């Protein structure tokens, strides 16, 4: 299946900028989310109620619609690790502090499916609409659902993921003893138009996505099995994009992949539970722009006992 559009809002200059993969900068304590003018994508009436995660997702979703020319996708599938945190915090705070009726907006918008729902409302799309929440593998589960739909009767699917950081999340991470990481808890959204049809906007091919609980299995064995299932091997992988949570030393990951180059993506995107979607956009543009790279494996080990694999291939390979 083909990746016919991709759009990301992140701490990189990634939105509506195909050259962003050549302008990557390492995150530092001053790095901020780089956002577009949302008024170009969302009506003022809708915008006034939206939290960051919904604004990011809607802008990326609409950008994918514009890039691909597919106005009415057959499904809208979203993955999110923690969902609409800002509205959830506001709703819970209201519940504790307000006597009497609780204002409804933050409650309505605190549910995880608000993201996919708001995209469908904006597009007036009445097709399959679902949200996957599987911790650090939420994006992979959204991809797997998309692959299943495309293997059945769907032709074009808008799939993506989003997570948002709020100050309270940083405090919680601090209290759990991850002070170094709490500074780089970030927000981000990435969306893609997946299609069975190759078009003049196609950038790369999505070959497979897979999740596995290691349960003491040898990671190397699991990696090789995944690649074998897709008729390839480590020798044919030109680049590995890894997502880890700081508890894993990069040399441990490099050791798993022999001589294949490994790039840790969290240094560019920061930590949020669906930053593998950022990796997929990075991989897609790399395959589209660098003819020497034919296959990229995304190795998501944010939770090091539940691993996600996503394999992408260039259009020519």
């Amino acid at each position: 299946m083909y990746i016919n559009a991709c759009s990301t809002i992140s701490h990189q200059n990634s939105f509506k900028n195909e050259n962003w993969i050549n302008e990557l900068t390492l995150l530092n304590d001053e790095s901020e989310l780089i956002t577009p003018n949302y008024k170009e994508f969302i009506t003022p009436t809708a915008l006034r109620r939206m939290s960051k995660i919904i604004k990011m997702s809607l802008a990326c979703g609409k950008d994918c619609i514009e890039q691909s020319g597919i106005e009415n996708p057959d499904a809208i599938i979203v993955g999110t690790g923690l969902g609409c945190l800002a509205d959830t915090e506001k709703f819970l705070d209201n519940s504790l502090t307000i006597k009497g009726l609780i204002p409804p907006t933050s409650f309505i918008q605190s549910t995880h499916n608000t993201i996919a729902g708001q995209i469908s409302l904006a597009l007036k799309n009445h097709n399959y609409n679902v949200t996957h929440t599987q911790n650090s593998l939420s994006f992979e589960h959204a991809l797997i659902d998309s692959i299943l739909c495309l293997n059945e009767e769907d032709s074009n699917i808008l799939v993506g993921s989003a997570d948002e950081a709020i100050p309270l999340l940083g405090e919680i991470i601090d209290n759990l003893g991850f002070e170094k990481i709490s500074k780089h808890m970030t927000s981000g959204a990435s969306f893609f138009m997946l299609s069975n049809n190759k078009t003049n906007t196609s950038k790369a091919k999505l070959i497979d996505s897979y999740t596995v609980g290691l349960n003491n299995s040898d990671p190397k064995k699991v990696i090789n099995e995944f690649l074998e299932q897709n008729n390839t091997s480590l020798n044919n992988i030109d680049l590995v994009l890894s997502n880890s949570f700081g508890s894993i030393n990069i040399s441990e990951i490099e050791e798993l992949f022999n001589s294949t180059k490994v790039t840790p993506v969290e240094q560019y995107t920061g930590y949020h539970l669906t930053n593998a979607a950022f990796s997929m956009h990075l991989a897609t543009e790399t395959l589209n722009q660098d003819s020497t790279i034919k296959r990229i494996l995304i190795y998501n080990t944010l939770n090091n006992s539940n691993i996600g694999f996503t394999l992408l291939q260039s259009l020519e390979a």
Partner: protein
Amino acid sequence: MEKLKRELKEQIIELLNLEDIKVSDIGDDTALFGESLGLDSIDALELIVLMENGYGIELANPEEGKDIFATINSMADYISKNKK
């Protein structure tokens, strides 16, 4: 009554995040719903909560809401007659 109308306009702007709207932009007879101010059904729920929490008025008949929330004048009139 004028004080109540201004208070309602300020509350509506803050409660509904009407960032680009000023108190002076909302006339006493401006239609709150529809094209003028563009409020919708979720905003109506917020106004029901405002009536109960801010003025102690519980709307017993939701059907009345359409007329009560039509304009600032109609809201102020209903509050002044029913405030507890």
